[in-house]
């Protein structure tokens, strides 16, 4: 099948962004992919505004910690009150993280900085961090969104000094004579080199270099010199009295770091099946550019091979990609924010709650019979008042209080006219194909005759609406 201009543009929009939106999908027949790529860069050029969750975090959290410590020291608080306070704070943090989740999801759906938010989602999985501290999570997200399209070295350094990561990977407990290797290990295995490109000695020595990196009671990074191991360390054959920054620089000097990051991005943006020669070409240029992320992305999205049929329509949308993409095409407001979290939970991807430090595995791991059958029903749930009769598992770490799905999961104020406009000039007999061309990135097309039994043919609008919902309730729509 020849790749149409529309298909190329939609491919770019699904991979570099969250898919086409109703208001601009019509233009995709004519604009050149190269111009669309420039547009994506331009709309993501400005610095992001920080997403701040409603609560006053410094007062609510960090000062809370201070109070607790002070009170505890003065012996004024008995164990029970302390425990209650802690539980209350934890609950507050969970509520705040829930709000941060919704705020960020809104950005992904509505922000014009699509490229930035898409890459932020990638880094959110790469620098995977599961801590129940809304302030830490908020700050880490801001670091990621600020550097998402910038320099990987800057991003790595900022993440490594974020209290969120320090807490998650136990660097707060990493002190001279009693090193904790957790951060050093994940840094090499997951954040930079990848498994098999370092020795256990490198990890042990690097952990010593990171001794003393921690955070203070204000939730800010602090280099606690009195905990730092001043002896010489030997990492990748180099010996010196290294500190954390030195180790990060040493890791950035390894070409393998560029290769590892490029491979992961290739899998996320192009194809889960690696193409070694393309990855080598990309990663050597990425390395020479001194880790300029935008440069790497331009290499990918401006290449001819990115638009080859084998790279189109074979990526299983993550739950976030699915939910955000659906809502970009069909403008609506969710009646109940909890529904957005419930869908994330049921489909297996809750923002800020990655399964572990290795992030979401993606691909076929998203799919089992329960998640697939639910995915097929989601378009109907979101656009109707049907109640979702499915319960999420309880989770003692998260326990977001939404195991009970007694609330409506539907959207309100659905802007169908915006969607109808897309097909305003399409003759009725071509509608099924035209709708499939917008919704399906795969090569096959539905049989209009088969669909006829399942759609409402009364008015043109009814037909468009019900055809869209039916074509979204398919395995094809899970792919992009």
């Amino acid at each position, binding site marked *: 099948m020849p790749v149409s201009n529309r298909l190329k543009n939609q491919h770019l929009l699904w991979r570099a962004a969250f898919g086409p939106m109703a208001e601009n999908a019509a233009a995709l027949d004519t604009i050149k992919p190269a111009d669309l790529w420039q547009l994506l860069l331009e709309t993501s050029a400005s610095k992001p505004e920080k997403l701040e969750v409603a609560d006053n975090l410094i007062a609510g959290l960090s000062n809370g910690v201070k109070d607790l410590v002070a009170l505890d020291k003065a012996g004024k608080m*008995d*164990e*029970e009150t302390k*425990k209650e306070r802690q*539980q209350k704070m934890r609950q507050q943090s969970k509520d705040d993280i829930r709000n941060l989740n919704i705020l960020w999801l809104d950005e992904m759906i509505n922000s014009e900085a699509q490229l930035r938010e898409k890459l932020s989602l990638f880094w959110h999985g790469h620098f995977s961090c*599961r801590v129940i501290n809304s302030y830490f999570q908020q700050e880490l997200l801001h670091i990621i969104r600020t550097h998402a399209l910038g320099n990987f070295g800057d991003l790595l350094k900022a993440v490594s000094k974020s209290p969120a990561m320090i807490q998650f990977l136990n660097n707060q407990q990493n002190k001279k004579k009693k090193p904790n290797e957790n951060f050093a*290990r994940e840094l090499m295995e997951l954040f930079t080199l990848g498994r098999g490109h370092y020795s256990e000695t490198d990890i042990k020595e690097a952990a010593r270099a990171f001794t003393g990196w921690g955070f203070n009671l204000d939730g800010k990074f602090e280099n606690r010199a009195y905990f730092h191991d001043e002896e010489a360390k030997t990492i990748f054959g180099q010996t010196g009295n290294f500190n954390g920054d030195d180790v990060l620089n040493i890791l950035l000097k390894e070409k393998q770091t560029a290769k590892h990051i490029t491979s992961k991005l290739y899998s996320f943006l192009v194809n889960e099946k690696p193409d070694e020669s393309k990855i080598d070409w990309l990663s050597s240029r990425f390395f020479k550019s001194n880790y300029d992320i935008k440069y790497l992305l331009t290499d990918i999205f401006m290449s001819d091979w990115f638009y080859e049929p084998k790279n189109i*329509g*074979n*990526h*299983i949308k993550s739950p976030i990609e699915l939910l955000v993409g659906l809502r970009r095409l069909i403008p609506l407001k969710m009646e109940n924010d909890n529904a957005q979290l419930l869908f994330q939970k*049921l489909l297996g991807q809750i923002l800020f709650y990655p*399964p*572990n*430090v*290795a992030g979401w*595995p993606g691909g*076929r*791991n998203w*799919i*089992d*019979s*329960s*998640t*697939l*059958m639910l995915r*097929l*029903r989601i378009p109907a749930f979101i656009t109707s008042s049907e109640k979702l*009769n*499915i*319960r*999420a*598992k*309880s*989770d*003692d*770490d*998260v326990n977001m209080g939404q195991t009970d799905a007694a609330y409506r999961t539907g959207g309100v104020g659905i802007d169908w006219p915006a969607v109808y406009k897309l097909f305003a000039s399409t003759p009725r007999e071509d509608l099924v194909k035209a709708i499939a061309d917008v919704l399906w990135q*795969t*090569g*096959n097309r*539905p*049989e209009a005759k*088969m669909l006829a*039994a*399942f759609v409402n043919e009364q008015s043109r609008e009814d037909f468009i609406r019900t055809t869209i919902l*039916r074509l979204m*309730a*398919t*395995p*094809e729509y*899970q*792919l992009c």
Partner: protein
Amino acid sequence: MLINRKTFIQTGTLASASVMLPGFLQALSRKPSVPPGNKVLVIVQFNGGNDGLNTIIPVTNDIYYRERPRLAIDKTKTLTLTDDAGLHPALVACKALYDEGNLAMLNTVGYPNPDRSHFRSMDIWQSGSQSNEYIYTGWLGRYLDAQCSGCDKPTQIIEMDDMLSLAMKGKNYSGIATTDPKRLYNSSNDPYYKQLIAGYQHGEETADYLYKTMGDAINSASYIHDKSQLQAAGKNYPATELGKNLKTIANLILSDINTKVYYLSLGSFDTHINQEAQQKRLFMQFNDAIKAFTDDMKAQHRFEDVLLMTFSEFGRRVGQNASNGTDHGTANNMFLISGALKQKGFLNPLPDLADLIDGDLKYTVDFKSVYATVLANWLGADDQKIIGKSYSKLKFI
């Protein structure tokens, strides 16, 4: 191909679903259904970290009573097992099973470098990984991959839940999650889905995979629903969620379904505060449901084909906290209930409370040893291939 839609909708059975599947989606060869005598494994997961020390109580251990001034259960209140051990007072049925020789207990089961996060530790238990390793398939999912190779419906494993846990996810196949076979059948038995499958042309690999999963799901839902119709289970199950789920399982066990593993969970056992009431309430539910289920299996002469195993992601701290609760700990005990036990009662010594790491128990049995035993000796599977490493086997089955 013209299909008379009316007939098609009316005969929404397994047979018609299979007929509708294009050739490449169909099984190469259909495996025969499993005859009675089929050994099944029932796993009950205690969510939240059950307090093992207040489950099997070391009634002569001074350290236990010293570390738990308000939470320790007095010897006279426990159900006596041995001179040194008693059961939680609510576990009356377990005590009876013990007396009959149908209960075995393993103490201090765990793994090296234990993780105290619920999520991570559950991940480790369900995937069967080391604590510094990240695996995205479950141990039962990998068993399913081996078992279902070329089969047309992955119904060898059923989880009684709306969502499927990691334990049941394999590389090529995943188990089926349902709390209600009828509801599962109704939601998947949509003629639209069948028409989609019928019209689908073999295409790109990922799309094929999704269509195959969809076909499997529809087939499985239909098959499970079909088998659940027999309703041969007894009547005396409690109306709790666990009771209802065990009754559904009993109905399936008593049919000729090919299911080998059933998975359930109960919780939350995360008792940081006011542990006594919470644990007691859950144990009463467990006890009543287990009694109904084991009585039923005995009456139907199938108890020797059933092995029921409990576990929790971790145990709890030896010392109680100031809120009459306990905090996250490490190694824990497991119950093994069956009419076919080769070893009964305690399989290993009670935990040594004088030899702790940071206030927590040291593990003495790797949980993967238990998995290896169950896979090889009960399910007849290649444990080493599924777990990825050889673990010494226990002798209780």
